[in-house]
Every structure is written in C-alpha cells, then in structure tokens.
C-alpha cells in the first residue's frame, strides 16, 4: 500500500506551513510543555539517583577506599553481597514482603466485597455506611498506628495503653511488629479496593447481570462468571496499588516496628538517607522501584490487553440490587460492628488519651486533664516540658504549613492532572497521549520514601539556574505534586473522557479558538470531576507523612510530622491531640467539598 505523503519533493512553503501548523496550535504547545515538565520531574531524577549509587561519596571514602566522585560498586556490593546484606537488605526485604502480602490478601478482597455490597446489594443503611467506610481513607495511616498504640501499647513503649490500663498484659507480638503493622495497614488500604472496585461496579451495566439471571444463573454464578471478571482489572489495580503502598509505607512500620527492632525495607532506607549513608539509601530506593515495576509487570501479564472493558452502555445505567435475602440484617450488623470496633473505638480511645494524665490510667476525673491541649508550663505536671498544643507556636506553624501546603499543592496537582488527562484522553492511540500516560505513571512505581530520597538528592545542590531547594516550601510542593501526578491524571483522564470530543468540535466549527474552547466548554463541564479529583489529592497530601518525613526542616514542619515526632519521643498525649486536629481538619474539608462543591471520592476513579 502506498504510504501517506510518499515521495514528495521538498518545499519551503510546505515546511513553513507545517511548522506554523504545529506552533500555532496551542494544544501542541501544551503537549510539549507537559512532556518537558514530566521529563524534568520524573526521568531526570530517576537517572540522577541511579548515577549517584555508582559514585563514591566523600563520607564513604575511608571505608571504601578511593577518592570522592569515583565510579564505585561499593554501595551495591554492600547491599547485595556483603556480610551486612542479611541485616540491611534481605531480612527487611522478607519482612516488607510478608507485610505487603498479608495486607493485600486481606485488604483487597475485603474492600472489593464491601464495594459489591454497597453498590449491588440491597444492604440497608447504605448512606451511613458509605460515609463510615470512607472515613479510614481520610484518617492518615500513621494516626491509625498511633490509635493502635493507644490501645495496645505495653510497658515497653513507655506509658501503658488502654488495655494495660485495664490490667491486661499485652504481649509484644500484638502491640508491635508484623501483626500490628498488617492490621493497621488492612484497616487503611481496604479503602483503595473499595474506591476502585465501586466505581467500576457503578459503570457495569446491570443489564449484563440481568441477562445472566434470565439465562437462569444463580446469584453466585452471576457474581462468579459475570461480575467478577468485569471488575477483575479494577481488583488487580487495587492489589498493585496496595502492594506498592504497603512496601513503601514508612509511618506505620516505624511507629509499630522500631520499638522491637522490627525493620522493613522502607525503614532501613529512611534511616540510611536520613543518616550518613545516603547513597546506600538511594541504591535501596532503586531496588524498591524495581520491585514495584515487577509487580506492575505481573499485573499487565495477568490482565493482558483487556485493561478495562467498555462497560458503559447508552441505556440502562440504572443499577439493580441483588437481594441478600435473610443475610441482609446480620450482614449489616456485622459490618456495623466491624466499623465500630475498627474505627469508632480507636478514635474514641485516641481522643480520650489526649485528656489523660497517665495513659492507660483509666478515665477517672483524677486522671483527666486539659493540659495536653491548653496547658501552660507553670501548670506542667512533673517531668513534662511541653506546653499544651494550643499554647504551642510550633503547633500553629505546623498546622498553617499543612494548610498552606495542602491547598497550594493539591490545586496545582489537580490542575496538572486535568491537563495530563486532557492530553491522554484526546491523544488516545497517538504517541504523545501514550507517552504522557506512561511518564505520568512512573511516580506511582516509586515508594514514597524512595521518592523523597530522590528529590532530596536532586535538589540539595543547585543545578544551573535552579537554586538548591533543600529546606524550602517549594520543594515540599514539588514533591507532593509529582508524587500525586498518577492519581491526579487518572482522575483527570476519567473526567475528560466524559466530555465528548464532538462538543469541542462543534465549538471549533463555530470558530472558537483552543483557549476559548477550554474556557467555555471543557472547564465548565469538568468542574465536578475537578472538585472530586482535587479532594482525593487534598486528603492524600494533608495526611502525608511517608513522603515528607525526609524533607522536614524546623521551618516547614507539617502537622503529621509534629505528631510523629511527639510519638517517637514518647509524648503520646500530644501526638494524639495533633492527630485529632488533623482528622478533624480532613473530615471538615471533605464534608465541605462534598456538600457544597459536590465532590465524591468514589467517583474519581472512572
């Protein structure tokens, strides 16, 4: 077949028109800017960190021999094949994998089941349940770790927790280590599976299931052979996401593991980067990226090309409810009890602990105080050198930082997310669309701690016109932004796919310029999706600890970090108080955006 534009003689006019055609179209310029931006923020950091792991650092000159800046295999050798390998790499790796594995096999089926019950069954009390189910997502995972401690802490961790206070002995294996870490992670990450599977289920036309019913399939058969295969891609995505998060999670394991010297990969890596062996930490980050890519590759092998099904038909978006029959009430009660035990009780204990003088000392008036909230030094109990958080200027500056960072970073992230989403949805099947989609996805593969390590390495020195950003607010914003690009662009793509290209073409034919089309057609129509996407990112950044822990400097401490540092210095009540402020802040924001601006988290995944 003759190829388009086969043998055509060179012509200046043609060249001029072609160049002009590319330049004068703002869409091309946006694509160009996005690609350059993604290259600088995603590819360059990755390359630079890889290079660092082969370059000898000054601090290691004496141990490794040679001169600073030399090419070296020292770091990789130390990690992979030295007498230290077992304790710095293999054991933490095994422990990380154990945690990630158990978290996945419990959290994903549980979240998916919840999603099915909520979307497809006639479970009573759905409205209240939906809110309760989403609360865990809004509470930072480290807050849950702290809540766990406030219940199970034993004498090893300083002041006793709730159960010890009742006179029970809490063994270490329950209070700290893998059991505790997995439990807390499951309680947190089931929300991923819930959000992703429920938005897929919502889009599956229930006529597909009704057809199965007409053919005489039983409820179980329908679920097994129609519903499950249709949501499988979403379930697998949720698995990968949970796996990646659990592998890279630092906050939960650090709170619950460090006390009994239970180290995960993320903890080791964090300590390396925070300490004197930065390059070792970077090498470890690369290993974590490779592991995450491996899980992703496995995912694509399993789902093959059928990443998602076109499940949306023009008609019949009405969703039927499969009757649960007599199981209805017991199921709801079980769910309610679960949610109360898993959420309400720990939150209550967390709240109460912030009023206690001695943690675990019961709720008698003699053990209750407002000191942790509003106390001043002159009233301080023995051994306490902190003022109550509301009297502490650190608290206000941290809170302010959190609000500032969250608002600035999430607005920018959501904006870029919509832009990338626009490019990928309008460039479906074209090279720039696919490239954008792939580049934007890379930060997803990099565990949070590794990600901040990379940025720390990149920006702690100046590069040409870019000054050293270490310890600046800008760096916090950039890191939060780039790390959330995958989410943001995913919600952006889902949002943009809903705006038919023909709506834009109709405006184009009417003579509207690109910017006019964006302003008058795309923006007004993507408003709700933008809000939901914004909320998803907002919550995620507000509670972020793993990502920012390495980058914290006194000036720009966030509330999450303040709570974390109280917790590690055995100031449980202070930590509780900060956590509560955090939770209230996130929930108020969600409530506001949900009621006033129409954001809905379960609809962001598209």
């Amino acid at each position, binding site marked *: *077949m003759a190829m388009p534009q086969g043998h055509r003689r060179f012509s200046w006019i043609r060249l001029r028109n072609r160049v002009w055609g590319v330049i004068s179209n703002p869409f091309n310029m946006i694509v160009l800017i996005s690609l350059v931006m993604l290259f600088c923020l995603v590819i360059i950091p990755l390359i630079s960190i890889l290079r660092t792991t082969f370059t000898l650092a000054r601090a290691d000159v004496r141990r490794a021999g040679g001169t600073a800046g030399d090419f070296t295999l020292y770091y990789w050798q130390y990690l992979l094949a030295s007498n230290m390998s077992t304790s710095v790499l293999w054991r933490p790796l095994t422990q990380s994998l154990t945690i990630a594995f158990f978290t996945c096999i419990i959290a994903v089926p549980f979240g998916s089941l919840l999603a099915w019950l909520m979307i497809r069954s006639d479970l009573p009390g759905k409205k209240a349940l939906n809110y309760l189910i989403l609360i865990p997502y809004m509470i930072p995972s480290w807050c849950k770790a702290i809540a766990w401690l406030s219940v199970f802490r034993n004498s090893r961790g300083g002041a006793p927790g709730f159960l010890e206070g009742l006179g029970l002995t809490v063994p270490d294996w329950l209070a700290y280590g893998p059991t505790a870490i997995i439990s807390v992670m499951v309680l947190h990450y089931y929300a991923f599976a819930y959000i992703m599977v429920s938005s897929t289920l919502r889009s599956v036309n229930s006529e597909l299931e009704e057809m199965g019913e007409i053919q005489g399939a039983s409820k179980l058969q329908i679920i097994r052979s129609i519903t499950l295969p249709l949501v499988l891609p979403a379930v697998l995505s949720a698995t990968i996401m949970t796996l990646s998060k659990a592998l890279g999670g630092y906050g939960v394991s650090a709170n619950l593991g460090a006390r009994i010297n239970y180290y995960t990969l993320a903890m080791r890596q964090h300590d390396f980067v925070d300490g004197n062996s930065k390059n070792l930490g970077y090498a470890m980050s690369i290993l974590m990226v490779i592991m995450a890519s491996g899980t992703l590759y496995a995912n694509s092998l399993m789902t093959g090309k059928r990443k998602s099904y076109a499940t949306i038909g023009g008609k019949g978006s009405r969703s039927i409810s499969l009757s649960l029959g007599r199981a209805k009430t017991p199921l709801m009660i079980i769910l309610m009890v679960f949610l109360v035990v898993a959420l309400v009780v720990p939150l209550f204990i967390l709240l109460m602990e912030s009023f206690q003088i001695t943690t675990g000392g019961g709720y008698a008036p003699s053990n209750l105080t407002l000191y942790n909230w509003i106390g001043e030094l002159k009233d301080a109990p023995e051994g306490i050198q902190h003022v109550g958080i509301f009297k502490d200027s650190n608290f206000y500056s941290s809170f302010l930082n959190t609000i500032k960072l969250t608002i600035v970073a999430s607005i920018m992230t959501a904006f870029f997310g919509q832009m990338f989403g626009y490019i990928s949805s309008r460039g479906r099947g074209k090279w720039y669309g696919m490239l954008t989609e792939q580049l934007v996805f890379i930060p997803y593969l990099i565990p949070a701690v590794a990600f901040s390590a990379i940025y720390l390495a990149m920006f702690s020195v100046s590069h040409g016109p870019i000054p050293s950003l270490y310890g600046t607010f800008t760096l916090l914003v950039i890191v939060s932004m780039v790390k959330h690009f995958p989410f943001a662009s995913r919600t952006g793509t889902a949002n943009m796919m809903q705006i038919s290209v023909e709506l834009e073409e109709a405006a184009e034919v009417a003579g509207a310029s690109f910017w006019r089309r964006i302003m008058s057609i795309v923006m007004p129509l993507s408003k709700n999706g933008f809000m939901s996407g914004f909320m998803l990112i907002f919550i995620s950044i507000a509670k972020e600890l793993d990502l920012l822990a390495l980058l914290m400097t006194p000036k720009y401490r966030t509330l999450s970090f303040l709570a974390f540092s109280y917790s590690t210095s055995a100031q449980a009540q202070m930590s509780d108080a900060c956590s509560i402020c955090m939770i209230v802040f996130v929930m108020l924001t969600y409530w506001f955006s949900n009621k006033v601006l129409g954001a809905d988290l379960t609809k962001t995944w598209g």
Partner: protein
Amino acid sequence: MSKIELKHIDKYYGSNHVLKDVTLTIEDGDFMTLLGPSGCGKTTTLRVIAGLEKPQNGVMLIDGKEMINAETAFYEMPGKRGLNLVFQSYALWPHMTVFNNIAFGLKIKHIQKQDIQSMVMDALEKMRIAEFRDRYPNELSGGQQQRVAIARAIASRPSLLLLDEPLSNLDARLRIDMRAELKRLHNEMGTTIIYVTHDQVEALTMSTRIALFSAGTLVQTAPPLELYTNPATLMAAEFIGNPRINFVAGKASCVNGRLTVQSDIGEYSFTEDIDLQEIPGGDFEAVLALRPEQIDIDVEPHDGYIESSVFASQPAGSETLLSIQCGKEQLLAKQIGIRDYSINQKIYIGFDPRKINVYSKESGKLLKHVRITHQ
C-alpha cells in the same frame, strides 16, 4: 451559496487508507448527499470538508478559494471556512441554555448584542422552537434537541451546511417530518447542503445530487433519479432500491454494435443506450438487472410473457411483494395495492426490455443503461 471542489483527497489513519483519491464537485445550492454503508468514508469526507480532519493528499476549494492544500500542508481553520456542522450526536453543550448554545458561535464572531438576539430568535423561529430558548438540552426531547442543533448551525447563516446523519436518532415518524423540514429549509435559505446518511430513502427523497461511496472510494455521483435508474456498478445497483433490484445471470456477446444476452428470462438484443467502450470482446458473462416495480404480472398467458410460478406472496396493504420462480431464477416483483396469489400458482410475467440494465459480471460496470423519460 458555495461551490465546493474536492480534488484527489486521500486520508489515512495510520496505514488504514480510508479515503481513496476522492474527487467531487458540489455545485452552489446543491443538496448533496454522501451515501453509503457504514465505514465507507462518507463521514470522514464530511469531516475533511469541515476541517476536523487533515487529509494527507489533495486539494479543496470553496468558491475557488483554497481551503486545503496537502502539498503545501495548508489547512484553513474550521471556523474560517464559512460553514457549520450538525453532529449525529447533536453535540449540544449541556451547560448552556438553548439560547446560549445558539448564541455561542455568534459571540465568537463579535456580532453586536442586539443582532445576536435577533439572529438567535430568527433561527429558533425557523425551527419552531422559540418557546424552549431558556431550557437546557437535557430538558428537551430528542426531536427538540435535533431542532436546536440545526438552529445552532443555521444561526450564523453559513453558506455551507454540513449534516452528519442528523436524523438517525429520531423515531420513524419524526424522521419523515424532519426530512420535509430540511427540504424546506434548503429551499428557503438557498444554502449549499452536504448531508451524510446510510439511509437511501433519505438520500433519494431529499437530495439534488447523491455521491455514492463504497470502501473509501467514490462510486458514482448523480441526481437521485439517475442513480436509481442507472446505478454505475453492480454494487451500486444492489445498494440502491428497496426492495432490492433483481439480478439475472446471462451469456452475452456483442457483434456490430448489437449486444445480445441470453438468460432464463429470455433472449434480448440491444442496439441503443449501450456503452461500447465497456463491452468486452467475444462471449462474456453478463448480469441483467431489473427493478421489482418494472415486472408486470398476469394470470392469463400473453404475447411475450414468460410462464412462472408464485414462490411466496407478501401483501402489505399499499403494495404487494411477490417472489417469483422463473426457470432457475428467483425474482421479486412489486405491485401497487392488495393482490391475492396462492403459493405455486401459475402466472405470466412481462417487462419492457428497455427498462433492463445490463452489467458485465467481471468488471461490474454498466454496459446498457435505461433512458430516463419524465412522465
């Protein structure tokens, strides 16, 4: 009020060649329908004309002004081509009222506010939907949305109006009403209209000319009656007409300008209306094509009538369709009114040989056409 010339247009999607060397001229004031089965390239042609697709080869002129020149990579922007488009999906902006949907394009053209007001109302009144001006698209029925989409396209008084299967989402009755309405609109405004459809009834009833597409190629351009009477190829003959045309296999030869065809429905010789250039030499396979309404049926034998039997009869009130077994061939005949035949009943069929089209089986080309006489 525009003349459109497409010259040697090629359009590829990747290596998929969707428009193959399309050359088409649409005269000023034409109601040109692009007709063909789905996937034949008719919508792509429309989008090329609108400026939503850039062809890899070819030139397009509107009123002599160059709009596309692939050689110099020049593509005029859609908004500057003086045309408007009605989408199959209507593509009404859901966040704007009917009024604002229509006013949008006028605002872009920096038209005075009072003029916009009067132009929008004018378009709304023309489409008889003035009372819906403050509604949102989702508060309207399909037929009303369709009217808004057309009103939006005609408000700026474009010299060229493009319509992409605009009636396909309407129910049968509304479709007939809208056909009449569009025909009137064309008449009143005098605008050149290019209309895409796969529905041949729409094409035959509305157009001044039809361009028939097949697999990315333009097969034939002709006025509706001409296209119906003399389809240029066997494929075109098969596509146009409902119930479909009868094909009868035959053996043919041409000696001294006399084309002779032997078949199960008899032997025929033609000296007039034949295209000698297309006729192969020697004996060759031919196909006789005869429209169902050209077949006359009688229960008594007649001179020149052929004995046949009734295979099945389908009376449908205003007309009766009759499947006839004639030798080894099965023919379809259409008679006006209700007729009653029983299965296997013996009948006699006759027709005017001048109403037969003859095609070459090998090339599929028309060898002998039917002279068009207006009764």
